[in-house]
């Protein structure tokens, strides 16, 4: 499904991601964890095309996508949510979904003139279903910017899903959420997996990561220090060291 091979991203002398190889299978929820500055967000930005890699390859369904612009990557099947919410604040809720819906559907279908100046079609049933899924049913007419924080997060997830991606990147989707909201989010992530969507989850909140992922990679200093099922990761001493430091002899 997604294959990162020897992927590197250097900012000057800083090796944000260094020679990293990861494979994510179809219909799998893959966790990326690691201390602050370990390169998690950089990986998300590399996969969705905000950054271009210094070296290495990114393959989605066997196709090399590392040379594509971000908008072409959406067409190729990558959608994402943002750590700091980026909605179209001055548009109604449903139009936020419409933007994503249109771009994929039409990118290859129509010629330039129809694509730009034709009326924008939308599948209202699908939008309503997505709003229902996000717990925003009946709120489609409100301005996105006027929603509460938690609702905006749900709308962002819905917008990413509206593009019908093969691979969904979630960049700290639970940041700032309370316990109930996190439980809610976990339910949604599991629902998306049942639709055969592959998901990469970058998250600090361990209850969420351990609860929904099939496999986890642990990063430190831009490299992978461990990979395995949630159970294996929880027991790994390498991981505990990365997070808590080496146990010292205090005697």
């Amino acid at each position, binding site marked *: 499904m997604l294959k990162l091979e020897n992927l590197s991203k250097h900012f000057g002398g800083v090796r944000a991601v260094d020679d990293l190889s990861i494979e994510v299978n179809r219909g799998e929820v893959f966790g990326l964890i690691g201390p602050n500055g370990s390169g998690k967000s950089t990986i998300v930005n590399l996969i*969705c*095309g*905000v950054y271009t890699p210094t070296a290495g390859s990114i393959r989605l369904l066997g196709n090399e996508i590392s040379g594509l*612009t*971000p*908008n072409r*990557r*959406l*067409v190729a099947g990558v*959608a*994402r949510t*943002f750590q700091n919410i*980026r*909605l*179209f*604040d*001055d*548009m109604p809720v449903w*139009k936020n979904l*419409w*933007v*994503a819906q*249109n*771009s*994929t559907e*039409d*990118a290859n279908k129509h010629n330039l003139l129809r*694509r*730009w*100046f*034709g*009326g*924008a079609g939308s599948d209202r049933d699908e939008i309503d279903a997505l709003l229902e899924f996000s717990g925003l049913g009946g709120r489609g007419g409100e301005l996105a910017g006027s929603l509460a924080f938690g609702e905006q997060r749900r709308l962002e997830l819905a*917008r990413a899903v509206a*593009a019908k991606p093969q691979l969904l990147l979630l960049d700290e989707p639970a940041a700032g959420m309370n316990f109930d909201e996190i439980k809610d989010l976990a339910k949604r992530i599991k629902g998306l997996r049942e639709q055969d969507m592959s998901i990469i989850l970058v998250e600090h909140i361990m209850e969420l990561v351990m609860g929904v992922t099939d496999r986890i990679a642990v990063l430190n200093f831009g490299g992978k220090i461990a990979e395995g099922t949630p159970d294996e990761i929880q027991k790994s001493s390498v991981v505990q060291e990365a997070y808590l430091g080496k146990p010292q002899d205090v005697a």
Partner: protein
Amino acid sequence: MDDIVFYTVEIIQSIIDGVLFGSTYALIGIGFTLIFGAMHKLNMTYAAASLAGAYIGLAFFTLFDAPVMLVFLAAIVGSAGIGLIVYYICFRYIPVEDHLAALMASVGALFFIDEIVIHATNASPLTFPALFDDVMFELGPFGIRGDLLFVFAVSLISMAALWYVLYRTRLGLATRAVSQQGIAAQLCGIDIHRTNGTTFVVAGMLGGVAGSMIGASVGILSPLLTLPITIKGLIVTVIGGLGSIPGAIVAGFLVGALENVFLFVRGVNERDMYIMLLLFVFLVFRPHGIFSRRAERD
């Protein structure tokens, strides 16, 4: 008593003429504001490109004796083409966050376009064809010039067309998405460069309308028009609020009307000084434009 009546009639007449001509200022203001809204950058060439487009239309008239409607059409296409070239030269390849570089590049392009026009016309004014310039509608004591009414109508139709493009087409959806959240728009599958380029073309078409309508109502085109139209356009943009299209429309009418009132009351030499004062009044009390809330003060 008769003096007062005469005075009032003349003032109202000035306002009528001013509002009608002000529709062209509104178009220029919309063009500035449209590009600012999309890229958060000022395209200083805009008014010059609009007038250059009108010159392209005029060339068809002088060289091939083309019908007036074709002259307007050529102006629209010409101005759109110049807009696209300006986009590629001054905006496309300059880093998004480098606002000063784009500004300087577009100021350079402004002078460049101006020089080309001066060179091509030997800096002398040329007659521009008008429509309905021999028609005059009587409304009680007031007269409405047919050519100005035509200019006004064409401007309103262009604004309606722009509204349609912005709010009823995919391009409009993409433009608004890009202006609100560039990165998210890209990751929603929108090609940000193509969208911006198309925005320049659409703004350019509007500029072509504005340029030829200015030519049609003034009766001549001259390189001397570039500077005042650029300044009026920028004033309209600021008064309307950068990025606000309704603001630019209202501000265009306002500037047009007040300009004519000042012209009548204080004469042509002082007219533009008062318009500049109006700009400062807005910058101090309503820095975000006519439709924003009053400026909060510390």
